């Protein structure tokens, strides 16, 4: 898994467009939640190898599982309508719920982080995730409105399609690898 692949796959799974539709809170809350998600993502990446060992799953097989998750998540983003606003804790606690979880720590992000750890590219994955969360913070600066929401929904679908492609590429890689 290269840095560029991880960056695209993380960005597609984080899906800043759908995030913005689900959460219209303050940018500083989003930034704080992104940091929390990055921290968890890093922990997952650096423990990926040990976790896969404990589960008796080879990194190549887990890549196939990650591909499956990305594809399912991508199909959902491609076909589903606009997400409902996520219920949030009050104040800065919203950085944890719903920003960090469940909006940013999507299943795709979790499995990608673990898969990258299993493939011994944890640091690369953390770097890619750190950059991939920036558009999420950026999206929180966008003011809402009917036209904006329509554009965000279209963008969310596009990222869903990208996530499916990322899943397919990961599956091919997993099948071709020994």
């Amino acid at each position, binding site marked *: 898994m290269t840095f560029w692949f991880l960056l695209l796959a993380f960005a597609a799974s984080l899906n800043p467009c759908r995030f913005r539709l689900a959460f219209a809170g303050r940018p500083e809350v989003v930034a704080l939640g992104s940091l929390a998600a990055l921290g968890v993502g890093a922990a997952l990446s650096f423990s990926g190898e040990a976790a896969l060992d404990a*589960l*008796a*799953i*080879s990194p*190549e*097989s*887990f890549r*196939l*599982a990650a591909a*499956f*998750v990305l594809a399912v998540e991508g199909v959902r983003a491609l076909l589903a309508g606009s997400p409902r606003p996520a*219920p*949030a*804790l009050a104040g800065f606690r919203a950085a944890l*719920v*719903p920003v960090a*979880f*469940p909006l940013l720590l999507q*299943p795709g992000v*979790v499995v990608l982080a673990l898969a990258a750890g299993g493939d011994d590219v944890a640091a690369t994955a953390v770097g890619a995730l750190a950059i991939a969360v920036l558009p999420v913070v950026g999206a929180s600066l966008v003011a809402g409105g009917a036209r904006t929401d329509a554009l965000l929904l279209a963008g969310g679908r596009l990222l869903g399609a990208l996530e499916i492609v990322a899943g397919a590429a990961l599956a091919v890689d*997993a*099948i*071709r*690898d*020994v």
Partner: protein
Amino acid sequence: MLRLLLPPIAVFVLGAAVLRAAVVPAEVCPPLTTAQARASVAAAAGWLERGVRPDGRYTYGYDREHDLVPTDYNVTRHAGVMMGLYRLAATTGDEKALAAADHGLPFLRANLIRRDDWAAFAEPNGDARVGASALTVAALVHRRLATGETTYDDLIRELGRFVLAQQLPDGSVLGSWSGTTGRPVPGEYAEFGTGEALWALALAARTFPDEGWPAPAQRLARWIATERDDVEGYVLTYPDHWAAYGLAELAAGSLDPDEVAYARSLAGIFGLNSRLESQSGTGGLRRLMRGEPANGAGLGTIGEALAALWRLSVADPRLGDLSDDLAERLRCTAARTVERQADAAEAARYRRPDLVRGAWFTEDGYTQMDHERHPMAALLAALPVLEEQPPP
């Protein structure tokens, strides 16, 4: 807060359970010692050796649930058994294996057909499949290695010329020759015969390096690497362990970039097969999600391919990055192969223990000669990996 978190947590837990059960069950790779692998090889060889019959054939199979020995026979598998036993003799000096393999020679001679300058090991109806002759070349080359004798060199050449007679200008090899028309059957390729032909030509090239065998072997290798999957309609690289043998036998460094890429694809597909196999099991969710575990031949061919590709990866630096992973998969497949073999205690529960001991049975209690021969070859080839030695 719990109310907010419960739905997404439920999705994660449920999703993880589905993934674990359906996509990534644990890969079970039991420990395996070299002594266990050697004992398993000996037990498999024992099953084949006990199957020597007065008419020069071998016991074809056994249904232990119904105590039936089938009347079927197949010359390709006959050649395969001879090859496996000669290979064992060549590798370990096993005299009993050599004697049992030699026992198959009269049946071979009785079923040779000769035309022009070639000979083919044919079915009793006079049709000849390229795989039977190719495996006979492999058998006799290994007999030569085991004994140092050149007695069968002319027959090796004759059988090799049959393979050449089946080869088309594009390098491909037709699968059958018709006894009725006296010609190769046009447009018909053999599922495994093509890879077997490659191995035979590569062995002939190594055995008789100055007799023009390398060129047709390389033409066939190129066709397999670049056209075979398209022509024969395979979406993914066809998992052909014989092609792996063939590539490994060609002189190190002689593969062109397409052939190296093909070897890499083969390694991938057999690696995947090995991983999927290690996720399978005889009961519970594993059985439900992965179906019936691979039979002896299936297990063996995965191991044989991994071993051949490991050998190739050690010899050719362009594939060197695969060596460790191939070795790991091979160790796992070998361990699972040994685990599934019927031992003496299991055999004692059946009416004819001698037809059970050392064999690999399907879920419905059937085994046939290739279910023993392939695992035996795989375990034999896995020994250097288990001993952490370089390939022979």
